[in-house]
């Protein structure tokens, strides 16, 4: 498939190019909705489509006014602030608990391993609306509903499975004899952990942390139920914006978030390569 052999028949050639075109269209379907919002966010009008001026590439068709609105509107600024307050706290909780547990789970003898794994992974499996409903009922019983910590705890719980999965994956290639070597030379378990194990698994920990961060940063269902007006996050503000009065500022916010995803994707890819190199799975 990769290259058409010189002896290919006409039918094969036709099929080869049809297939390529079809794949191209699917890739277009995947990427077009994300790319289209970028130019639209610079629209000088309050429309959600390309104006005549934009299509003619006239400068008066474009402006930064939606970005300006985002950076000056108190609603959006409050939402941004809340997101920036909640996501890192949830990430730290999820990453520290998750990394410890992943190290425990990768030891050779863990009783009830599959049962424990099922419980720890469950926040990723259970549909968000069910988690949100359960958390809403339970957290209002114990007075956490509508509080900052309620949202942080909930988001941390939702993020932990990703940390577990990425860190256990990194630990698969980890050579346990390194730990034994460190211990035999007199290092205590804490020193061994920070000096030997941690540097080797750090790519997994960081990418797990990024997953946990993006889980919290993008999460809207749980915060919609658990949060009160004081915990309104960016996705929440976008959700209400889309449902009620749809303003083009959303496109500016969306474009900024696409930029964040691109940065995250690049960092993760770099980490993956580094981790594979460290574990000797691929030659640089």
């Amino acid at each position, binding site marked *: 498939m990769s290259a058409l052999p010189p002896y290919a028949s006409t039918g*094969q050639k036709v099929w080869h190019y049809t*297939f*390529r075109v079809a*794949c191209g269209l*699917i*890739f277009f379907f*995947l*990427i077009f*909705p*994300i790319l*289209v*919002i970028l130019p*639209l966010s610079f629209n000088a009008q309050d429309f*959600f*489509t390309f104006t005549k001026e934009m299509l003619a590439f006239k400068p008066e068709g474009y402006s930064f006014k939606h970005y300006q609105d985002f950076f000056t509107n108190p609603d959006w600024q409050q939402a941004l602030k809340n997101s920036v307050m909640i996501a890192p706290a949830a990430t730290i909780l999820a990453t520290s608990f998750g990394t*410890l*547990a992943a*190290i*425990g*789970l990768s*030891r050779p*003898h*863990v009783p009830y391993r*599959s049962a*424990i*794994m099922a*419980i*720890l992974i*469950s926040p990723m*499996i*259970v*549909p968000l609306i*069910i988690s949100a*409903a*359960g*958390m809403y*009922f*339970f957290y209002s*019983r114990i007075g956490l509903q509508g509080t900052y910590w309620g949202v942080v705890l909930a988001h941390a*719980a939702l993020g*932990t499975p*990703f940390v577990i*999965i*990425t860190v256990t994956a990194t630990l698969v290639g980890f050579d346990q004899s390194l730990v034994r070597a460190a211990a035999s030379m007199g290092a205590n378990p804490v020193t061994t952990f920070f000096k030997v194990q941690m540097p080797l698994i750090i790519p997994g920990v960081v990418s797990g942390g990024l997953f946990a961060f*993006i889980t919290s*940063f*993008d999460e809207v269902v749980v915060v919609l*139920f658990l949060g009160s007006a004081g915990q309104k996050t960016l*996705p929440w503000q*976008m*959700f209400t914006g*889309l*449902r009620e009065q*749809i303003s083009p500022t959303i*496109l500016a916010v*969306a474009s900024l*978030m*696409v930029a964040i*995803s691109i940065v995250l*994707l690049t960092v993760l890819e770099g980490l993956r390569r580094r981790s594979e190199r460290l574990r000797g799975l691929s030659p640089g």
Partner: protein
Amino acid sequence: MSETATEQVLTTKDGRPLKASLARALRREKLRALVLIAPLLIFVLLTFVAPIADMLFRSVENSIVEDTLPQTVNALQDWDPSSGEVPGEPVFAALAADLQVAVDLKTHTRLGSRLNYEKTGISSLFRKTGRRVKKMTEPPYKEQFLKADKKWGQVDTWQTLKQFSPRYTDGYFLSSLDAERTSEGLQMKPEDEQIYLLLFGRTMMLSIAITVSCLLLGYPIAFLLAQLPLRTSNLLMILVLLPFWTSLLVRTSAWKVLLQQQGVINDFLVWIGLISDANRLVMINNQTGTIIAMTHILLPFMILPLYSVMKTISPTYVRAAKSLGATDWTAFWRVYFPQSVPGIGAGAVLVFILAIGYYITPELVGGTSGIFISNRIAYHISSSLNWGLAAALGTLLLAAVMILFIVYDKIVGIDNVKLG
């Protein structure tokens, strides 16, 4: 090493039997692992598993009737609804006593709204009676209640009260399956009141449609990526991973912008002359909108597992088939495709699990015909405040997801979940 037969037991240096010593080391090792896992396990149990358990409990819990009207519930035990007669004076006396307490605590309106889910009109009945009950100090109570509201003279009212007096009820589950308990026993609700079975059915149908379209679009992409040289496929992979990493709300907003009647796609179609300005396509706030947007959102979840399976299929099998005279199609269909089936299974189950629990996208682009059962759950939590019903619907949805997940575990295995 001991030479004599009596001292066969191996010992460690400090004289302990080796077996015991090893067992102790193993125990310690297990304990150490558990100590590392414990913080997260406790954390997840408290912040996640307990809320889910609370929800399961709420779907059957029904202590409000007995808590608010303890004497009445007690007195009603001897009453037989099939007799067709309203209970006698002792029950009304108990009700009067209970209601007087309840009115002071203002709990009678809450009970009214609870029972109103089962039978409309009870909420106003309790409110109305609550205002009069203070004046009922002397027997006969029955007459005064009947004067306050005729509904106290109807067997239906009492039947509802008796039916929901136990501490636990299956009423919420019956409601979520469009069934109810009447004087003639268990039966389906009248057809015009059936909504949940329809909604469950629609959730299933739409999820299947989304899974199928993800498969149709995802299979060629995964196939292409697995065939291309690594350098090219890594580049193209970015086109799959970028949507995967982009916020769900960003993608939903994009579709909202694209699919609107005054949106980009309609503008384009009008511009090239495919449709006239007057007949712009309605692609949003209906099922089409939900299917298109969710296919786009879930497509990476189909491509990634398919790709990882296809990567492991050795090209030599297809080459062998072709050298034995198979046409391209036969070689693909009889040799390559069967080997990719595990990937299809994994991807399809994953997409389906994610689809049936979706809330945000159907809410924003689904209108009324494209919403899922989860939107109804959200409605009951935040608008109608019928938490019990929301919990029962959630429990049913959870059960469906769990069954699917066990299937997924059998196909892929929990430990093999990979990200990116």
